[in-house]
């Protein structure tokens, strides 16, 4: 008796959430610079993004010029930005802050894992993937999740071949329980992955930088989405944002990669971006005032991006109170943090609601949190 794989072929029914974590505490005041604020230029005489060079956003803020590839998404209303975003922890430790943010507070498992649990078991072995050597904490507790650096790792490997595949499928066809069901979906997922032209051109004229592992990761996420393997969530990291020294040298290439990778991903997916949301987040921001080493130190608030279908893009969401009246931070040489005015959960909440959760499920994803979700989507 044949058992049919039930990976969806209904493109409209499948939504995918892509979480990009900027590890090392990315400087939100460089990514999205408050170029009209005189205090910004006063606190950062050497590091501030010049108003003349910034990509204008809403009259108050400008994107760093290396993020110019995202200008089209902003203008076309597909990119929303929340500034002064972050978590409640004041530890300023990368490890602690990443841990808390990936777990969604003090809770078992990662918030993305709990979201996937709340959605129910995935029919696909590729319901959740991390383009990473190991599974990140954010996906901890997911019903099923796979970590790999290349789609080439997902398959029968060198042993693959008609005889091997046939014999393996024959063994699983003798099963009568969930294992047969899971295996059938896995064989179908492998078939769909193998049908992908992994080294062919991206669609809609998109160009990924094949030398950049972030761009290659996004390209593979796009390939999985287009192959309809049942991808619910993906996690991709960009590390190296800890910029205590010579910040420009460190993070300008990273912003290049972030901007061009995201723009290529959006272009490649075309109309399918309507069912995809990309969230870009980091563990905390950096001090408002630059330090003596042409860098910035660990701070509090940073910026988050939400890119995708249905978002009320082309605008900065959430609270913002400017850079006036900053207080000196203890014995540190640096003045002031950008305070966290917009909790990351209030930014993720509307995204998860759009991706199928209800309010009760949301409460289980982020337990012990009183929500004040930002209106990122129209009702």
């Amino acid at each position, binding site marked *: 008796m044949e058992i049919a794989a039930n990976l969806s072929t209904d493109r409209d029914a499948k939504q995918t959430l892509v979480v990009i974590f900027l590890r090392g505490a990315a400087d939100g005041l460089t990514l999205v610079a408050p170029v009209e604020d005189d205090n910004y230029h006063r606190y950062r005489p050497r590091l501030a993004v010049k108003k003349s060079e910034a990509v204008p956003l809403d009259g108050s803020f400008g994107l760093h010029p290396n993020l110019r590839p995202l200008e089209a998404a902003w203008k076309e209303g597909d990119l929303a930005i929340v500034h002064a975003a972050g978590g409640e922890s004041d530890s300023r430790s990368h490890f602690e802050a990443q841990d808390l943010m990936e777990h969604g507070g003090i809770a078992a498992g990662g918030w993305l894992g709990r979201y996937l649990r709340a959605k129910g078991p995935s029919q696909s072995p590729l319901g959740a993937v991390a383009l990473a050597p190991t599974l990140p904490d954010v996906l901890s507790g997911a019903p099923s999740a796979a970590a790999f650096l290349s789609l080439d790792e997902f398959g029968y490997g060198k042993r693959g071949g008609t*005889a091997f595949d046939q*014999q393996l499928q*024959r063994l*699983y066809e003798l099963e009568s329980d969930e*294992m047969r069901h899971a*295996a059938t979906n896995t064989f179908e997922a492998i078939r769909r992955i193998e049908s992908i032209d992994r080294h062919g051109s991206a669609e809609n004229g998109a160009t990924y930088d094949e030398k950049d592992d972030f761009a290659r990761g996004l390209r593979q996420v796009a390939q999985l989405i287009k192959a309809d393997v049942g991808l619910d969530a993906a996690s991709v990291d960009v590390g190296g944002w800890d910029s205590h020294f010579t910040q420009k040298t460190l993070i300008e290439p990273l912003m290049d990669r972030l901007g061009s990778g995201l723009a290529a991903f959006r272009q490649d997916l075309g109309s399918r971006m309507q069912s995809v949301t990309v969230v870009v987040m980091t563990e905390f921001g950096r001090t408002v005032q630059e330090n003596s080493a042409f860098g910035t130190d660990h701070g509090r608030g940073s910026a988050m991006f939400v890119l995708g279908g249905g978002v009320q893009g082309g605008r900065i969401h959430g609270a913002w109170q400017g850079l006036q009246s900053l207080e000196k931070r203890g014995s540190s040489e640096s003045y002031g943090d950008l305070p966290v005015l917009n909790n990351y959960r209030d930014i993720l909440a509307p995204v998860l609601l759009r991706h199928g959760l209800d309010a009760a499920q949301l409460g289980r994803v982020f337990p012990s949190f009183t929500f004040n979700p930002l209106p990122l989507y129209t009702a």
Partner: protein
Amino acid sequence: MATLLNRQPNATESDGFLKSGDGLALILASPAFQRC
């Protein structure tokens, strides 16, 4: 095979072992071994 499966292989497993081109990999990926 019996060592890996903790029992004698059935006819399908024995047949697959010979025909798959990589019998050991097949047994390691088989449902019986996955349940061990």
